[in-house]
C-alpha cells in the first residue's frame, strides 16, 4: 500500500493547497511534498524487488485489485516497482519538492492554484512510473498533460498560449496513436485476458500476436511497434518530433521547466524501455539501425541547434534533445551496459537538467533576462548560484565523478560492443562527437554570461540568489556528484532489472 500512500498524499495535498490562501500556499505545498519525498526515500531503502517487472521479476510494494471487466479483458489497479521504476519515482518526488522551492521567488500570482497543480502532477507522475496495468498507466500518462498545460498556459512567458496548446496537441495526438496501437496489439494477442503489462509481455515473447483485421501476426507486431515508437518519440522527444519542446520550455515558468525536462521527458524513454524494448525484441533487432540513426541525429542535431541559440533556456532545452538521443542509442544497443546506461542517463539527466533549468531560473529572477548577449560577468554578483551552474554544465559535458560521466560512459561502453546493432562502432563514435559540441556550446555560453566584466545595466539591484534557491541547487549538485562517485547506488538495481531483457526470454 506504500505506492497508494504516496499518490494519495500528493493528491490530497494538491486539493488542500488548491483551496489554501495564496499567502501560505508555497510553504504548505513544500511541507506536503516532503512527505512523498521522504516516503520514496524510505521505499528506496526498503526496496526488496529483483528482476524485471515485466519478465516475472519480484516486484516491490506490489498491490493489485480488480477494477473492471471489458468484455473478455480484465483491468486492475496494479502497481509495483522494480529496479527501473524505483529510481524514477525517487527522482520525481525529489524534483517536485525542489521545483516547489524554486517557485517561491518567481510565482507571485495565483499561488495556491500553481502549487496545487504541481502536487497534482507529482501524483500522476508517481502513478506513471509505478502502474503496471496498461489502462491504469494510460490514465496517469494522459492526466499529466492537464496540469502541465495549465502550468505553461497560466504562468508562462509572453507566447504561453501558443506553447501550451502546442504541447497539449502534440503529446495528445501522439498518445492516441500509441493508445490505438497498444489496444490493437492486445486484441491481436489471442490468449491474453487482461491489460496487465507483465501478461502482455509474456504473451509477446511466447509467440506474439495472431493477427487482426487481415494483418498477419508479425505485420501487426511491426505496425504496433512503430505506432508505439512514434507515440513515445514525441514525448521523449526525438528529432523530428521535438519542435514542441523548445517552445514549451522557453514559455514555461522555471519550475514547470524543471519538471518537464527532469521528469516528463523521462516518461517517454521509460515507456520506450517498458514497451518497445521489453515486449518486441524481434522488432528491435529488425529496426535497430534506423532507430540508432535517429538517435545519433538527435544527439548531433540537437546539439547543433543548441549551439545556435542565444537564450539560455533554449540552450538547455535543445541540449535535452541531444541527451535523450544518448538514451535511445543506449536502448537500441540492447546490451546490459547500453540499456542500463540509458536508464542511468534518465536519472542523471533528470538531475542535471533540473539543476540547469533551476540555475537559469535563479539568474533570470535576478537579472530579468535570459539572453546570453545581454549578460556578462554574473559570477561577480551571484558567485554561488553561478558556481553551481558551471558545475552542472560540466556534469552535462560528462566530467568524471559526476553522474553525466557515468551515464555516458555506460552508454558508449554498451553501444560500442553491441552485437545486435550493426555498425555499432560507427554510431557510437558519431554520438561521442556530440559531447564535443555539448562542451562547445555550454562553455561558449558560460564564457559570455558568467565570466568577464559585469556590464548589465539595470535599474534594479542584481544581488545574490536567495538562500532557499541556493540550497536546492546544492541538493541537486550533491546528488549529481553522489551518483557520479557511486553509480552503483542505483546502477546495481537497474542492471538487475535490465538483465532479463537483454538476455532474451530465458532468465
Amino acid at each position, binding site marked *: 500500500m506504500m505506492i497508494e500512500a504516496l499518490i494519495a498524499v500528493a493528491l490530497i495535498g494538491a486539493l488542500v493547497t488548491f*483551496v489554501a490562501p495564496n499567502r501560505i500556499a508555497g510553504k504548505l505545498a513544500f511541507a506536503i511534498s516532503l512527505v512523498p519525498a521522504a516516503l520514496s526515500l524510505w521505499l528506496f531503502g526498503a526496496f526488496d524487488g529483483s528482476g524485471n517487472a515485466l519478465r516475472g521479476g519480484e516486484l516491490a510494494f506490489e498491490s493489485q485489485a480488480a477494477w473492471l471487466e471489458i468484455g473478455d479483458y480484465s483491468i486492475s489497479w496494479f502497481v509495483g516497482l522494480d529496479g527501473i521504476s524505483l529510481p524514477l519515482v525517487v527522482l520525481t518526488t525529489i524534483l517536485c519538492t525542489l521545483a516547489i522551492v524554486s517557485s517561491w521567488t518567481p510565482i507571485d500570482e495565483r499561488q495556491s492554484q500553481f502549487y496545487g497543480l504541481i502536487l497534482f502532477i507529482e501524483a500522476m507522475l508517481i502513478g506513471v512510473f509505478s502502474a503496471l496495468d496498461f489502462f491504469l498507466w*494510460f490514465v496517469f500518462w494522459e*492526466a499529466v498533460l492537464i496540469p502541465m498545460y*495549465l502550468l505553461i498556459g497560466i504562468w508562462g512567458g509572453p507566447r504561453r*498560449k501558443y506553447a501550451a496548446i502546442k504541447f497539449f496537441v502534440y503529446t495528445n495526438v501522439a498518445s*492516441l496513436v500509441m493508445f490505438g496501437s497498444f*489496444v490493437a496489439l492486445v486484441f491481436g494477442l489471442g490468449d491474453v485476458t487482461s491489460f496487465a503489462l507483465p501478461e502482455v509481455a509474456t504473451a509477446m515473447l511466447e509467440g506474439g500476436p495472431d493477427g487482426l483485421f487481415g494483418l498477419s501476426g508479425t505485420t501487426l507486431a511491426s505496425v504496433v511497434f512503430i505506432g508505439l515508437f512514434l507515440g513515445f518519440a514525441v514525448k521523449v522527444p526525438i528529432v523530428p518530433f521535438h519542435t514542441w519542446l523548445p517552445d514549451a520550455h522557453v514559455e514555461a515558468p522555471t519550475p514547470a521547466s524543471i519538471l518537464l525536462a527532469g521528469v516528463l521527458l523521462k516518461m517517454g524513454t521509460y515507456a520506450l524501455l517498458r514497451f518497445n524494448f521489453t515486449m518486441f525484441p524481434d522488432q528491435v533487432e529488425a529496426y535497430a539501425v534506423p532507430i540508432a540513426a535517429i538517435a545519433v541525429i538527435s544527439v548531433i542535431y540537437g546539439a547543433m541547434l543548441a549551439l545556435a541559440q542565444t537564450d539560455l533556456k533554449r540552450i538547455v532545452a535543445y541540449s535535452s534533445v541531444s541527451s535523450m538521443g544518448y538514451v535511445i542509442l543506449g536502448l537500441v544497443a540492447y546490451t546490459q551496459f547500453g540499456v542500463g546506461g540509458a536508464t542511468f542517463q534518465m536519472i542523471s539527466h533528470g538531475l542535471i537538467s533540473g539543476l540547469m533549468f533551476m540555475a537559469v531560473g535563479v539568474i533570470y529572477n535576478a537579472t530579468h533576462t535570459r539572453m546570453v548577449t545581454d549578460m556578462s560577468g554574473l559570477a561577480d554578483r551571484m558567485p554561488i548560484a553561478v558556481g553551481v551552474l558551471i558545475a552542472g554544465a560540466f556534469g552535462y559535458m560528462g566530467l568524471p565523478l559526476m553522474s553525466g560521466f557515468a551515464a555516458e560512459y555506460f552508454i558508449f561502453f554498451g553501444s560500442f560492443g553491441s552485437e545486435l546493432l550493426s555498425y555499432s562502432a560507427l554510431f557510437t563514435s558519431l554520438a561521442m562527437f556530440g559531447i564535443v559540441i555539448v562542451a562547445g556550446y555550454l562553455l561558449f555560453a558560460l564564457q559570455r554570461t558568467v565570466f568577464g566584466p559585469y556590464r548589465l545595466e539595470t535599474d534594479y539591484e542584481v544581488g545574490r540568489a536567495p538562500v532557499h534557491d541556493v540550497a536546492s541547487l546544492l541538493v541537486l549538485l550533491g546528488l549529481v556528484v553522489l551518483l557520479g562517485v557511486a553509480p552503483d547506488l542505483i546502477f546495481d538495481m537497474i542492471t538487475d532489472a535490465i538483465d532479463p531483457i537483454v538476455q532474451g526470454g530465458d532468465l
Partner: protein
Amino acid sequence: MAVIDLPQWLALAPALILAATALVLFLFDSINPHSTNRTVLSGTTVIGALASLAVAVWYAAAGVGATGIENYGVIDIMDGQFVVDQLALFFMIVVAIVTALVAVASHDYLQDHTYQAEYYSLLVLAATGMSMMAVSNSLVTVFIALELTSLPSYALVAILKDNRGSVEAGLKYFLIGALSSAIFVYGVSLVYGATGSLQLEAIAANLDAAGEMGGLLGLGILMLIGGVAFKTASVPFHFWAPEAYEGAPAPISAFLSSASKAAGFVLAFRVFTTAFPLEATTAVIGVDWTWAFVILAIVTMTLGNFAAATQENVKRMLAYSSIGHAGYVLIGLAALSTSSGDLVMGAAMIHLLVYGFMNTGAFLFVGLAEYWGVGRTFEDYNGLATQAPVACAAMAVFMFSLAGIPPFGGFGSKYLLFSHTIEAATENTALLAAAAALVINSTLSLYYYSRLVKALWIEEPLLERDTLAKPTGLYAAIVAAAVVTAVILAAFGPIADVATEAAATVVG
C-alpha cells in the same frame, strides 16, 4: 425471495414518487399561489428526486428486474404495458440524479423569478415522464410517456416569459416537437397496421404476420427512428437543440440535454431490441435496421462536433457538443447486429450515466455564469478562474471529461464504447468506421472544450468585474457533479457489470 409479497405496481415506485412530488408541489401552489419560498419548493423537489433515486438504487441492488435464481426477475405490469427490469432502473437512476442536481441548482438560479412553484412542478412532471419512458413496454405507453415529458418541457424552455430568446426557443422547440410527435405516432400506427399489436413483445411475435406489408413496417420503423432522433437530439431532428438549449434557462438546458436525452435512448434501446428483433425484422422488411443507426451515429457525431467548433457562444457550443455525444451513444444501437451488441449497448448506457454528471454540470456552470451576469461568449468567460477558482476547476473537469481525457469519467465511458465497438467490428466492418469516427471526433472535440478551459484559466478578463457571488445551491450542484465526474472511473467495475447485465436483458 421477498419476505412480504409487495404488489407488482410498486416496482414503478421511482416514477410514482416523482409523480407524487409533482402533486405535492401543485398542492403547495394552489394553497399559496405566489409563494417565492425557494427553499421549500426546491427542497421538496430535491427530496422527491433523491427518494426516487434511493428507491431505484435499492431496487437495482436488490435484484429487482434482474434475471437469475437469487433475483426477482423482470416484472411485467398491466399485461406487459410496463416492464421493470435493470435497464429501466438504470435509466430511472440517471433521470433522478439529473433532476436532483438541476433542482438544487435552480434554487439560486430562480432568485427573483415569478413562477417558482410552476417551474418545479413542471420539472418534476417532465422527470416523471422520463422515468415512465424507461418502463414503457408498449407503443401506447411509450407515446404517453413521451408526451408527458415533452409538454412540460416546452413550457419550461419558455418559462422566462419576458425574455425574447426563451420564448422564441420555446416556440421552436414546441413546433419541431409537435412535428416529430406526429411523425412518431404515425409510425406507431403503421407498425400497428402491419403487425396488429402495440405491446412490444406482441409486435415481435407478430412480425411474421406482417408478411407482404414489410414495406409499411419498414416505413413505420423509420418514423419511430425519427421520433427517437428528436428526443435524443440526433440527426435529422437535431436542429431544435441549439435554439432550445440556448434560449432556455440554463438548468433546463442541463435537464433536457442530459435527462431527456437519456430517456430518449432508453426508449430506443427497448423498442428496437424488444419489438424489432433484428433477424425476424430483417426477414420481413428486407433491410437490417442497424445500418440506419451506423449512418446516423457517424453523421450525428461529426456534425455535432464540427458545428460546436465554430461557436462563439458557450451555451450553443455545449448544445452542439450534446448532439455530438448523442452520436457516440447511437453506436450502442448500431452494434446490435453483432454478438457483442450487449457490451456496446452497456458502454453506451455508461456514457449516458457519466454524461448525466459532466454535461449537467457544464450547463449548470453556464447557469452560474448567467447568475453572475458575465455574458455568453467565450470572451466573456475570460479569466473567471481568478475570481472563482473552485467553480472553474469543476468546469475544467467537465470539459476534459467531455473531451475524454483521463482520469475523468468521460474517458472511461468513451474507452469502453471504443473498445467494445472494435470488438464488434470483427463481425461487422462498418463499425470500424464508427469506432474511427468516435476517436477522431473525440480528439477534435478537445479543440473547443479546451478553448473554454483556456478562456477560464489562461486568458485575462476583458473588463474589470465586481466580486462574484457564491450561490450555495449552484455551487453545491456543480461541485457534486464534478466530484462524481472525477472519481467515477474508480467505480467503473460495478457500474459496467450492472449496465452490461441490463443491456443483456433486452438484447437477449
